[in-house]
């Protein structure tokens, strides 16, 4: 047999290779297309309004006779809302993960884990719906407010929504810690809790940081659920006031917008996009450092 002969297999191989290449390029093209379109659509309004007035203006009045396009209230609301969700969701999610990965019996774990997956699968409109019907009235009566739709309600809904990703990624990070560390600590006479706190968790810290960033990405990009519970008024953020997020600012006006208002909405989307790109970059660095695979 002549080893240089080509046969059918090579042809099939090269056709398959080409198909995969084309499909891969289509994928990347979508990302690039969105990216380029957002920049083209978003930049002009920023130019017209002025980048300082746009990013740091505290008043948004897009339909007023003398319109104002300051999106600082949205930026801050998105940041505060996300930070609040992390402050509540991280300890809750992290300790659940520690419990499930290390302490819970096998039986408990196989019962609870599918439920967490289910939590991740619930559509955000359902979260918003429950938030509207249960959480908002509860906040109104507990804190004696005229209206319960507020930043606080949004924070709680977001905290619950990011729980599954925080729990899942933290479990993966905790399980990636070699068992030898645990055995080494126990063999020195340390008890289990001490071993988790002083050896296992520090060894998993970059994976846990990745969980936080993933949670941040989820929370900052969420629109539907927060729109339903946050009241949606373009106020500067305050815990018990009605607020509007970057996402909801785009979603709530897009249907009836025109002219500069419409262009400004694209600019908001661009700002949100930049935020998410940054978060993703941080996430990738953390995951690489932690050696934890993204799921």
């Amino acid at each position, binding site marked *: 047999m002549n080893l240089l002969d080509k046969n059918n297999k090579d042809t099939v191989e090269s056709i398959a290779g080409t198909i995969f290449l084309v499909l891969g390029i289509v994928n990347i093209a979508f990302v690039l297309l969105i990216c380029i379109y957002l920049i083209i659509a978003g930049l002009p309004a920023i130019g017209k309004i002025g980048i300082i007035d746009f990013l740091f203006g505290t008043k948004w009045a897009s339909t007023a006779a003398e319109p104002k396009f300051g999106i600082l209230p949205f930026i801050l609301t998105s940041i505060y809302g996300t930070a609040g969700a992390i402050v509540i969701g991280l300890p809750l999610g992290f300790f659940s993960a520690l419990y499930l990965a290390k302490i819970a019996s096998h039986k408990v774990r196989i019962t609870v884990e599918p439920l967490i997956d289910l939590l991740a699968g619930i559509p955000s409109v359902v979260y918003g719906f429950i938030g509207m019907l249960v959480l908002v009235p509860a906040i109104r009566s507990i804190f004696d407010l005229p209206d319960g739709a507020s930043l606080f309600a949004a924070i709680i809904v977001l905290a619950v929504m990011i729980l599954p990703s925080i729990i899942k990624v933290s479990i993966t990070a905790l399980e990636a810690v070699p068992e030898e560390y645990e055995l080494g*600590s126990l063999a*020195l*006479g*340390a008890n289990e809790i*001490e071993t988790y706190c002083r050896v296992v968790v520090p*060894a998993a810290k970059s994976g846990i940081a990745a969980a936080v960033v993933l949670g941040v990405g989820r929370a900052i990009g969420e629109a539907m659920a927060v729109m339903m519970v946050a009241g949606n008024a373009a106020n500067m953020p305050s815990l018990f006031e009605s607020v509007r997020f970057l996402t909801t600012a785009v979603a709530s006006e897009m249907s009836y917008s025109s002219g500069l208002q419409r262009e400004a909405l694209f600019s908001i989307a661009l700002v949100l996009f930049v935020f998410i790109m940054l978060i993703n970059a941080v996430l990738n660095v953390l995951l690489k450092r932690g050696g934890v695979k993204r799921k």
Partner: protein
Amino acid sequence: METIFDVENFNLWYGENHALHNINMQIEKNSITALIGPSGCGKSTFIKTLNRMNDLIPSVRLSGSIKYRGQEIVNSKINVYNLRKEVGMVFQKPNPFPMSIYDNIAYGPRTHGIKNKSQLNEIVEKSLRDAAIFDELKDRLKDSALGLSGGQQQRLCIARALAVKPDVLLMDEPTSALDPISTSKIEELVLELKKNYSIVIVTHNMQQAVRISDYTAFFLLGDLVEFDKTDKIFSQPADKRTEDYITGRFG
């Protein structure tokens, strides 16, 4: 001689699998006892019983008696954390924690409540000296322990075990992952440590057992076939199976 561990009619099961049958032996103070035998003979299982690390495996069942300095440790409500402080362990694969050399050594003492900085410094230095690794590492105490070579990591792990001032050291094939030079350093160290500690060492390497141990126990398929002075075992084994094993006919 004083007896450290007194093992009587000890049995162990993994679920339905009867892994150790009726083990009887005495481990003496300030001696090195080697446990030899082919893979799966139960020697590692046995050593992990001596500091109750087997507790971590849910399906393990024990019967019989093992007394550590007169106190029953099988199926008794002892404080296992205290037992493990007294009976330290060094593992097959060097397992330093992902922290600095200093923090690795200080981990045990801190766990047992020592917070005083100068006291910790003293313990760290003494442990590293006792493990014959202080001179190599004294300028690198703040560096990560993961940057050390395998042999250095293993001696660091020995130093870490010494830092809680144990009475007994259990070593589960401590040199099987190391090169010959690191191995001979560890062997020298173990001989040195015998003055102050009682040592039980699992080894696959029969020359190692001959070189360092005072007593040798030969395990086969869950039975303790023979337990005697090392020279006796290797020169005039009483049991045919021991002879076959040490002359390399199987295993």
